[in-house]
C-alpha cells in the first residue's frame, strides 16, 4: 500500500490516516503467534461485530487489547470470564480509525492448571524417550568447590549456605543469583548453570529454590533448563520447592533433594562425624597391622619348632634302622647258637666235626656262650 507524504519545503509530512495506514501495513507483516495472559474487561455485545477484552500479564500487569470476530468467539463456546488464563493465537493489528494498537485473535484456548500439567507431561514423555532423565552420576564425596544457583530471595539460599557451612566449615561455595521465576527465569538459570560449571574446581552444583505456587515453579520444568541440567558437565543436585513438587529438572538432575537443606546435606559430609569415623578407622588400622604380624609370627614359630625337631628325627630314624640291621646281623652269628647251649670244640685249632678226629688224652678247647675252657678227651 502506498503512503503519500505532503512536501512542505524540505519537510515530509504525513496525514494521520496515512501514518496509521503505514504502521498498520508494517504490523500486518508480523507473524501470527501465541500469547498467554489473563482475560479482563471482556465486552461482548450482540450488536457488535467483534468481541473485545484485555489480556493481562499476571507477572507484571502489562496489558494488551484483543479483538476477535464475534462469530468466531461464539463458535469457540469458551464461556470465558474475567481472570481466566488463556492462550490467544493471533497477530498485532492497528485499528486505523483510532490509532489503537491491539491484537487480532484468530483463536483462544483456555489454559488452566490441567493444561499446564498436560503440557509438562507431554514434555516429560518426550525427554524420557530421549534418555534425558537417565544420567545419574555419583556426587563427589568432598567437592573442591560447590556451585549454588538460586534466586536472590533469602530463604533457599540461606538454608543451603547455613547447612553446608554447619556441616563442613571449610567448604567453598560459588553462588550465582538469578531469576528463578517469571518468563526470563529458564534462560537466566541456563546461563547461571553454565557459568558456575565453568567457574573452575566446581565439583557439584545445587539448584535451589524454596516452595512456591505451581506456576512459580514452572521455569524448573522448562525444556531449556531441563536439558541444561541433564548435560551439565558437573553433577547437579536439584532442590526445588517442597517434597510433593516434582519439576522436570528434578528428574534430569543427578540427585534430587526434597528441600534446600537436604541438598546441602547431600553435597558435603558432616566434618565432625567424618573426623570421628576417621579416628575409629585409624585405630582399626593399627589393630589390623598388628594382627597380620602376629599371624605371621605364630606360623613362623610353629615352622621353626618343626625345623628344630626334624634333624633329630632324621638321625633317630637312621639309628633305629641301624639297630635293626645290627639285630639281624647278631641273630645270624654263631654266638646266638652258643647261647642256646651249644658248644664249639676245637682240637689243635681245628673245629672238631667228628668223634674220630680226636684220640683219648688229647687236650681240646671248648667254646661256650660266655667264654671257653680246656678239657681232655677220655
Amino acid at each position, binding site marked *: 500500500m502506498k503512503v503519500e507524504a505532503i512536501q512542505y519545503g524540505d519537510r515530509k509530512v504525513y496525514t494521520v490516516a496515512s501514518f496509521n495506514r503505514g504502521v498498520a501495513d508494517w504490523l500486518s507483516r508480523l507473524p501470527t503467534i501465541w500469547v498467554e495472559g489473563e482475560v479482563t474487561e471482556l465486552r461482548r455485545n450482540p450488536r457488535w461485530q467483534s468481541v473485545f477484552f484485555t489480556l493481562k500479564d499476571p507477572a507484571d500487569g502489562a496489558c494488551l487489547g484483543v479483538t476477535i470476530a464475534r462469530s468466531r468467539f461464539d463458535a469457540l463456546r469458551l464461556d470465558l470470564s474475567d481472570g481466566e488464563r488463556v492462550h490467544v493465537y493471533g497477530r498485532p493489528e492497528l485499528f486505523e480509525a483510532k490509532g489503537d494498537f491491539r491484537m487480532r485473535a484468530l483463536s483462544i484456548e483456555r489454559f488452566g492448571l490441567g493444561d499446564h500439567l498436560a503440557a509438562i507431561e507431554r514434555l516429560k514423555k518426550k525427554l524420557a524417550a530421549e534418555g534425558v532423565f537417565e544420567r545419574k552420576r555419583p556426587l563427589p564425596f568432598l567437592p573442591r568447590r560447590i556451585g549454588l544457583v538460586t534466586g536472590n530471595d533469602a530463604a533457599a539460599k540461606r538454608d543451603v549456605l547455613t547447612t553446608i557451612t554447619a556441616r563442613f566449615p571449610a567448604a567453598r561455595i560459588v553462588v550465582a543469583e538469578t531469576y528463578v521465576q517469571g518468563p526470563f527465569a529458564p534462560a537466566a538459570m541456563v546461563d547461571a548453570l553454565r557459568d558456575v560449571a565453568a567457574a573452575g574446581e566446581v565439583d557439584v552444583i545445587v539448584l535451589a529454590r524454596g516452595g512456591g505456587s505451581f506456576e512459580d515453579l514452572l521455569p524448573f520444568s522448562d525444556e531449556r533448563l531441563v536439558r541444561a541440567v541433564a548435560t551439565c558437565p558437573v553433577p547437579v543436585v536439584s532442590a526445588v520447592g517442597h517434597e510433593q513438587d516434582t519439576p522436570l529438572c528434578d528428574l534430569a538432575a543427578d540427585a534430587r533433594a526434597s528441600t534446600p537443606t537436604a541438598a546441602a546435606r547431600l553435597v558435603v559430609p558432616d566434618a565432625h562425624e567424618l573426623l570421628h569415623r576417621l579416628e575409629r578407622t585409624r585405630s582399626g588400622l*593399627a589393630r589390623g597391622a*598388628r594382627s597380620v604380624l602376629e599371624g*605371621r609370627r605364630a606360623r613362623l614359630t610353629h*615352622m621353626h619348632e618343626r625345623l628344630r625337631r626334624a634333624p633329630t628325627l*632324621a638321625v633317630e*630314624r637312621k639309628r633305629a634302622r641301624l639297630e635293626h640291621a645290627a639285630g639281624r646281623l647278631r641273630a645270624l652269628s654263631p654266638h646266638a647258637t652258643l647261647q642256646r647251649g651249644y658248644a664249639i670244640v676245637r682240637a689243635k685249632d681245628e673245629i672238631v666235626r667228628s668223634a674220630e678226629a680226636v684220640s683219648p688224652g688229647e687236650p681240646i678247647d671248648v667254646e661256650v656262650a660266655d667264654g671257653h675252657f680246656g678239657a681232655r678227651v677220655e
Partner: protein
Amino acid sequence: MTFEESQKELEQIVERLERGDAGLDEAITLWERGEELYKRCVGQLDAAQGKIEELVRRAESAKP
C-alpha cells in the same frame, strides 16, 4: 628375598626333612639353611613390627 619367599622355602625344607628321604649330609645342609631362613624371617617381622609401633606412636602424638 621377601618374607613370603623365605617363609615358603622354610616350609618346603621342613616338609622335606619330615618326610625323611634326605641323606644325612643333605639333611644337615637343609637344616642349616632352614635356620638361616628362620632368622631372616624373624628379622623381617621384627622390623615390620617396629615400623608399625613407630607409626602408631607418631600418629597418636599428632592427634588433632
